[in-house]
C-alpha cells in the first residue's frame, strides 16, 4: 500500500494526524521524526499532481521539517537535482541544504526549482495552514485558521479539532470555529444538528465568503439544513445589498475625485482664461512621466526613498509642466487670444507634438510606475472594501482643490488673475502686467494638470496616450459644472462620478457612459452655463 493510498483512509489520517500533533505540540524534541521520504520523492517528480499529493502527506506527517519544506516550496526555493536518483534540496544563499537536516551539502549538483501552479499554491496554503495551527504565535495561528477556512480542506479537520481544544485566545478561537464550520457544512456525513450550528456560525459572518460557504451545502442535505442555509443566505443578501449601495457611492466619489483631478487644471486654462486647451491631457501625461523618471532615479540611486517617490514627484511635476505651460503660452497661445478656433487647432497640434516626443523619448510601450507601500492593499469598513490607493487619491484631490481655491482667493497672484479675467483693460490700467499674469495663469493650470498626472499614474497606464483618455471627460466636467467656477468643477466631477457608478451596475459600463453623456447634453440644453453659472458683468467680457 503506497503512502498516498494509505492517506485516503480517513481513520488512518486521523491517527497519523493525532500522533503528529502530539509529537509537535508536546514533545517534539524526543519523538522520532516521521518518515517523509515518500512525499519528498514525489516532490522531485516535478509533476503538479504529485506535488499536490506530497503536500497533503507532509501537512499531516508531523515531521518537524515539513513546515520548512512547504515554506520553501511557496518561495520557489525548493529545488531538485536533475541527475538520477533525483534528490530534493532547499536553496539557501550560496548553498543547497538537505531538506530534513538543513545541513549544507558538499559538492552541490545542478538543480531545478519544483514548479508551482495555482492548484499547488492552494495546496501550499492549506498545508501551511494545517501545519501552523499549533504554532506558539497567536498571529500565526490566526492566519492558519483563516487559511484553513479558505481552503476548506477536510483533511485539516482533525488537526483543527485538536487545536481548537487547546486554544485560549478568543479571537483565534472564533476564527478556528469559523474554519471548522466552513469545513463541516460541505462535508458528507455531518449530522443535521452539527450542520445547522455550523450554518449559524458562518451566517453570523455575513460577508461574501460566508455566502460562498453557505451555498456549498450539499444537495442531499436534509430539508431542515437547507432551510437554515436559505434563511441565512437571504438575510446576508439583504444586508449586503444595502452595503452595495454604499459601496457604489464610494466608487462614485473615487471616480469623481479622478475626474476632478483631471479637470481642475482645465478649469483654470479653459474655465478662467477661456482657452480651449486641447493639450491639457498631455500636461497630465507629462506629470505621469515625471513620476516615472523620479521613480527610476530613486530606484537607481536611493531605493530606500521609494515610499516617498510620489511626494517628491508632486512639486517636480508641478514645476515641470508649469514651465511647459508658460512656454506654450508665451510662444503660441498669446498670439491667439480671442480666436477660439485657432487656439483649438494650435493646442491640438501641440498635443500631438508632445505625444510623439514622449513616444520617441520613452518608447511607445507602457512604463511601470510602482505604488508605494502605503497606497497598496485595502481594508474592510463594514462590508465595504476600501482600497488605500483610491482613498489617498480622494484625499489628494481635495487637497489640490483647497490649495487652488486658496491661491485664487488669498494670494496676490490669485487676485491679479481674477482681476485680469474680469476686466483686462481696467486691470492693466491699475498697473497689473496682464501679459505676465496670463502666462502665470496658464502655467498654474498646466502645473495642476501635472500634479493630477502624478496621481493618475497610480491607476492608469503611463503611456503616451494617457492624456487622450481624459481630455473629453475633463471638458465634460468643466462645462457641466459651469465655466469659470471652481466649485462647479468640484460638484460637477463628483455628481458625474457618482451618477456613473450608480448607473453602471444596471446599464453596464458601455451603456452607462452613453446614458451619462446624453443626460449631460440634455442638461446643457436646459442650462447652457452649467450647474453654477457665473453671474454679473464678467461673463459678458
Amino acid at each position, binding site marked *: 500500500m503506497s503512502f498516498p493510498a494509505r492517506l485516503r483512509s480517513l481513520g488512518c489520517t486521523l491517527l497519523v494526524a493525532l500522533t503528529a500533533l502530539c509529537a509537535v505540540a508536546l514533545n517534539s524534541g524526543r519523538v522520532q521524526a516521521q518518515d517523509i521520504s515518500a512525499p519528498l520523492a514525489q516532490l522531485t517528480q516535478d509533476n503538479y499532481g504529485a506535488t499536490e499529493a506530497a503536500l497533503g502527506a507532509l501537512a499531516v506527517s508531523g515531521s518537524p521539517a515539513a513546515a520548512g519544506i512547504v515554506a520553501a516550496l511557496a518561495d520557489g526555493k525548493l529545488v531538485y537535482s536533475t541527475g538520477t536518483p533525483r534528490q530534493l534540496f532547499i536553496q539557501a544563499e550560496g548553498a543547497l541544504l538537505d531538506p530534513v537536516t538543513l545541513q549544507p551539502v558538499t559538492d552541490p549538483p545542478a538543480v531545478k526549482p519544483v514548479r508551482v501552479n495555482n492548484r499547488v499554491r492552494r495546496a501550499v496554503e492549506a498545508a501551511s495552514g494545517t501545519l501552523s495551527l499549533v504554532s506558539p504565535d497567536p498571529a500565526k495561528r490566526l492566519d492558519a485558521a483563516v487559511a484553513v477556512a479558505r481552503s476548506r480542506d477536510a483533511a485539516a479537520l482533525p488537526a483543527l479539532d485538536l487545536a481548537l481544544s487547546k486554544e485560549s485566545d478568543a479571537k483565534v478561537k472564533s476564527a478556528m470555529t469559523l474554519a471548522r464550520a466552513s469545513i463541516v457544512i460541505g462535508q458528507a456525513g455531518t449530522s443535521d444538528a452539527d450542520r445547522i450550528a455550523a450554518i449559524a456560525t458562518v451566517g453570523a459572518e455575513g460577508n461574501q465568503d460566508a455566502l460562498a460557504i453557505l451555498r456549498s451545502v450539499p444537495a442531499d442535505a436534509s430539508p431542515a439544513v437547507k432551510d437554515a442555509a436559505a434563511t441565512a443566505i437571504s438575510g446576508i443578501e439583504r444586508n449586503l445589498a444595502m452595503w452595495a449601495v454604499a459601496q457604489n457611492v464610494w466608487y462614485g466619489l473615487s471616480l469623481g475625485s479622478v475626474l476632478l483631478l483631471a479637470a481642475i487644471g482645465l478649469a483654470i486654462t479653459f474655465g478662467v482664461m477661456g482657452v480651449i486647451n486641447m493639450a491639457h491631457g498631455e500636461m497630465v501625461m507629462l506629470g505621469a512621466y515625471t513620476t516615472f523618471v523620479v521613480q527610476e532615479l530613486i530606484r537607481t540611486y536611493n531605493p530606500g526613498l521609494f515610499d516617498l517617490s510620489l511626494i517628491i514627484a508632486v512639486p517636480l511635476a508641478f514645476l515641470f509642466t508649469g514651465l511647459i505651460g508658460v512656454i506654450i503660452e508665451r510662444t503660441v497661445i498669446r498670439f491667439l487670444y480671442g480666436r477660439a478656433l485657432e487656439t483649438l487647432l494650435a493646442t491640438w497640434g501641440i498635443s500631438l507634438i508632445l505625444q510623439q516626443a514622449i513616444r520617441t523619448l520613452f518608447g*511607445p510601450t507602457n512604463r511601470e510606475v510602482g505604488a508605494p507601500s502605503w497606497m497598496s492593499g485595502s481594508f474592510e469598513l463594514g462590508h465595504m472594501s476600501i482600497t488605500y490607493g483610491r482613498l489617498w487619491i480622494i484625499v489628494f484631490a481635495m487637497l489640490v482643490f483647497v490649495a487652488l481655491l486658496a491661491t485664487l482667493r488669498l494670494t496676490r497672484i490669485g487676485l491679479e488673475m481674477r482681476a485680469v479675467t474680469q476686466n483686462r483693460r481696467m486691470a492693466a490700467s491699475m498697473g497689473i502686467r496682464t501679459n505676465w499674469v496670463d502666462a502665470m495663469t496658464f502655467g498654474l493650470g498646466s502645473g495642476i494638470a501635472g500634479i493630477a498626472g502624478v496621481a493618475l499614474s497610480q*491607476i492608469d497606464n503611463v503611456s503616451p496616450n494617457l492624456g487622450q483618455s481624459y481630455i473629453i471627460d475633463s471638458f465634460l466636467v468643466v462645462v457641466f459644472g459651469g465655466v469659470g467656477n471652481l466649485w462647479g468643477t468640484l460638484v460637477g466631477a463628483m455628481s458625474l462620478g457618482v451618477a456613473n457608478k450608480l448607473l453602471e451596475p444596471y446599464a453596464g459600463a458601455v451603456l452607462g457612459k452613453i446614458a451619462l453623456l446624453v443626460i449631460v447634453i440634455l442638461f446643457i440644453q436646459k442650462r447652457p452655463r452649467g450647474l453654477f453659472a457665473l453671474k454679473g458683468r464678467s461673463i459678458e467680457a
Partner: protein
Amino acid sequence: MLNMFTHARRMAGRALVGAAALTLAGGVAAQAQETIKVGVLHSLSGTMAISETTLKDTVLFMVQEQNAAGGVLGKKLEAVVVDPASNWPLFAEKARELIAKEKVAVVFGCWTSVSRKSVLPVFKELNSILFYPVQYEGEESERNVFYTGAAPNQQAIPAVDYLMANEGVQRWVLAGTDYVYPRTTNKILEAYLKSKGVKAEDIMINYTPFGHSDWQTIVADIKKFGSAGKKTAVVSTINGDANVPFYKELGNQGIKATDIPVVAFSVGEEELAGIDTKPLVGHLAAWNYFQSVDVPENAEFIKKWQAFTKNDKRVTNDPMEATVIGFNMWVDAVEKAGTTDPDKVIDALIGVSVPNLSGGYSTMMPNHHITKPVLIGEIKDDGQFDIVEQTPGLIVAEEWSPYLEGSKDLIADWRKPLACGNFNVKTGKCGGAGN
C-alpha cells in the same frame, strides 16, 4: 535623468544611422541589382503604436537576417515602412501606396480586425498578399490574406478546457473590451461552454469601453459572482491598454489567482512589462508561444533579437513569433514558385511548412491559416510565463467556428478547383454567410 536622456538620444541616433544605412543599402543595391520590396504596415503612432511598433522591428530584423543569408531568389530584400497612425481609413490608403506606388511583393501588417477589414478591398483589387500576425475572432478567409495568428479554437477553447480540467472551474466571467474580437470570441465561448453543460446562470458576460480605467465596480461584481460556492474563473478578452488598471484593481481588492484565476488572450510579455507583476502571479494567459519556451531555436532567436535591438531586456511575444513564421513561409513560397508574382506565390504558400519557435513545425493550411501548438502559461513575478500546459500536437485553425449558427456549415479551401473562402457544405455553394 541625464543617464536616461543620453540613452534615449543614443537610441534615437542609432535608429537614424540604421535608417540611413538601410536607405543607403537600398540605394546601392538598386544600382547593382534589383531588390524585392517588402511592405510593413504597422502603426508607429497613435493608440496601437504600443503593440505594433515591435512588429515593425521584427520585420526589419527578419529582412536583415534574410539578406545576411543571401536574400531571396538571389536578390536583396528591402523593407518599406509606412505609418498608418492607428487610423483605420489611413490603413487602406497606406496599403494602396505600398502596393501601387512602392510595388511591394508582400505586406506584413495590421493588428486590429477593423484595420484588416479596412485594407481588405485594396488587397483584393490590386491582388497582393497580406500576412496578418495577430490572434483574431475568425469568421473570415480571404484569398489575399494569410492569417498566422490564432483562430479562437487555437487559443480560447484550449484555455477554457485547461481551466475546466485543472482548476475545476464551473462558473465563468467572460470579460472583454467592446469590439468585434471579444464579442465574437465570447459568443463562441458561450456556445462552447453551454455545449459542455454549463448553465446560463453560471456565465456572466461583461463589456467595457476601450481604454476603460475605472474597474472598481466590475471587479467587485466579479468578486460577488465568484462567491456562489462554485469555482469561478475570468476569461479576459480585455484589450491591451485597459489591462493595467484591471489587474491593478484585482490586486488592490485582494483577488488572488488561487481564488479567481484570470486567463487572458491579449496579455503577453510586452504588456506585462508595464505592470508590477507580483500581485498577478498565477493568473494565466493562453498563446501559441511564450518567451520562456525552453527550446534551442527560441534561445537562439531571443539572442539574435536582443542583439538586433541592442537591448538585452527586450522581450519577445506571440504576435512576433507569428510574424516570423509568416515571413519565413513567404520566403519559402517565393523560392518554391521561383517568382514574386502574387498569384503563383498564393498558390505556392499552401502546404509550406516552417519551424516555429516552440520546437515544432507550422504548416500553412488550405484555409490560409496555420497549424499551431497551444500553450497555457501562468504569470511569474519577473513578468515571464511559466508554461503549465502544452497541447500534445498541433491544432488546425477553425476559421469558421462550428459553435456559431451562421458559420458551422462553412469551410474554406483555397486549392483549385474549389478555391473558396466560405464554401457552404449544406448547399454546396460558394458564398455563405459572414462574408
